[in-house]
C-alpha cells in the first residue's frame, strides 16, 4: 500500500502511458471493425453508440479520481486526470463528428432542427460545447495564465457536462433504461461524494 502512495516521475509517466493505451482500445476496436466489416448491419449506429458510451465512461472515471485520491491518499492520481479527461473529450469529439458527418452528412438545416426539437440533442450538443473550454485549458501554460483558483472553477463545468451527458443518453433510449440508469447512479455517487466533503468542510469551519 505504502509503495503506491508515492510514485516517482518515471513510474508516473509509465502509468500515464498505460492509461493512454487503455483509453485507445475502444477506438482501435472500431477501426478494426470498420476494416473487417465487423460493425454489424448498421455501422453508423454502432460507432455513434460506442463513442457515446466511452465518452460517458471516461467522464465518470475522470470524476472518480478526486474521491479515490481522498479515500486512498494517493496524491499522484490527480496527475492522471488530464489524460483521462482528454480521452473523454477525444471520444466526445468522435461522437459529435459521427453525428455531423456520418449521420447527418453536414445537413445543417437538419442539425439545427434537431438541436431545437430533439430534447436529447438539445442537451447533448451544449454538453459537448462545454467540454471545449475544458480541453483547451488542459495544459500547464493556460493553468498558469488562468491561475489555479479560476482554472478549478472553470473545470467544475465537468459536473454540468456529466449530468448533461447522462440526461442525453436517458432521453434517447427507446425503452431499456438499464445503461443510462447505471451511469446516473455512478454520477450521483461521484457528485454526492463532493457534496458530502463540501458539507463536512463547512461543518468543520463553523
Amino acid at each position, binding site marked *: 500500500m505504502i509503495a503506491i502512495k508515492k510514485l516517482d516521475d518515471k513510474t508516473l509517466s509509465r502509468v500515464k502511458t498505460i492509461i493512454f493505451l487503455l483509453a485507445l482500445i475502444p477506438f482501435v476496436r472500431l477501426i478494426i471493425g470498420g476494416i473487417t466489416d465487423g460493425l454489424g448491419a448498421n455501422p453508423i449506429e454502432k460507432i455513434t453508440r460506442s463513442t457515446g458510451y466511452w465518452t460517458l465512461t471516461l467522464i465518470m472515471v475522470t470524476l472518480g479520481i478526486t474521491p479515490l485520491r481522498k479515500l486512498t491518499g494517493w496524491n499522484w492520481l490527480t496527475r492522471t486526470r488530464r489524460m483521462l479527461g482528454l480521452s473523454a473529450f477525444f471520444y466526445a469529439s468522435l461522437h459529435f463528428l459521427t453525428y455531423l458527418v456520418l449521420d447527418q452528412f453536414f445537413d445543417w438545416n437538419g442539425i439545427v432542427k434537431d438541436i431545437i426539437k*430533439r430534447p436529447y440533442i438539445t442537451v447533448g450538443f451544449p454538453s459537448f460545447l462545454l467540454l471545449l473550454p475544458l480541453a483547451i485549458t488542459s495544459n500547464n501554460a493556460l493553468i498558469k495564465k488562468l491561475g489555479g483558483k479560476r482554472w478549478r472553477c472553470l473545470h467544475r463545468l465537468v459536473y454540468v457536462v456529466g449530468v448533461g451527458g447522462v440526461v442525453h443518453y436517458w432521453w434517447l433510449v427507446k425503452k431499456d433504461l438499464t445503461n443510462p440508469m447505471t451511469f446516473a447512479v455512478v454520477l450521483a455517487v461521484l457528485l454526492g461524494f463532493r457534496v458530502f466533503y463540501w458539507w463536512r468542510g463547512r461543518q468543520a469551519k463553523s
Partner: protein
Amino acid sequence: MRDKIDTRILPSEITSREHYTDRRRFMQMAAGVSAAGLLPESLWAADKLPATANQAYLLDEEKTPYKDVTGYNNFYEFGTSKDDPARHAHTLKTRPWTVTVEGEVHKPKTFAIEELLKLAAMEERVYRLRCVEAWSMVIPWLGYPLSELIKQVEPTGNAKFVEFITLQDPMQMPGQRSAVLEWPYNEGLRMDEAMHPLTLLTFGLYGEMLPNQNGAPIRIVIPWKYGFKSAKSIVKIRFTEHQPVSAWMKAGPSEYGFYSNVNPEVDHRRWSQAKERRIGDFFKRPTLPFNGYADQVAGLYSGMDLQKYF
C-alpha cells in the same frame, strides 16, 4: 416491363442464398474468428419453404442481405440490443406449435402450424420494412394474405379488431425475464387493415422457414406500418369488438399509437421520422408516406386526422 418478369423465378434466386453465405463464409475466414464458417452449409442451412413469387409484389429495390435481415432486428423477447435476437433465439422451440383463433368468430379453432402452412398457396413477396427507429430494409417474405385465415374462421358482426399475441415463456424467451415491456407482446389491427391484401401471414424469408430471431414459426407482416406492429411468434389471434391496447401503447402512450402507420409528417416524440437509413446505405433517404404503399392503403384512412391517430 413488370409484366415481362418471369414469375417462375423467385427473387431469392436472382440474388442467391449462396451469394450471401459465400460472402459470410469469406468474411468469417478472413477475420479468422469463427470455425463455423468452415462447416459445410448443410449443417446450418434452414429448411426450405417452397413458394411462388407474386408478381404484384416484386419490388424494384435492392434486397437487404440475408445476414443483416437475420442478424439485426428488434425482438425484445430475446434482449433489447439488435444483435440479441440472433444470439439468443436458439432457445425458442417452434415445434410443436399451435395458434388459437378465438373471440368474435363463428368457428374458433386451434390450428397446428403444419395445418397453417398448408392453408393457402405460399407466396413470395418483397416488402419494404421501416423500423420506428428510422432504419429500413427490403425483405423477401414467404406467406399468404391473413384474409385467407380470417375467411376460414368466419368473424361475427361484432368483430371490429384483430389482436395478435406472442408466445410468453421466459424459459424459451429470456428477454421476458426483464419487465422492459408488458408480456406477452401483443399488437392489433382494425378489421379492414387485417383483411387488406398487403397484410401477410408470414412463415418464411429468403426461400426458407423463418429463422427463430425473425419471429418463427409464424408472424404477421404489415408493410405500411412501423415494424413493431408486425407481431412475431404468434400463438393467439383474437377477434374483438374493442380496440386492443398494444404492448408499445402500454409502454409509451404518447409515443406509440394504435395505427403507427409510417408517416414522414408525424415525428416520434423524440426523433424525426422524415428520413430513414436503408441498411447498407450511407446516405439517408426520405421516408415515404405509408412506407411507399399509399396507393394501396391511404384509402383506409380517408377522413382521419393522422396527426391525432398516429
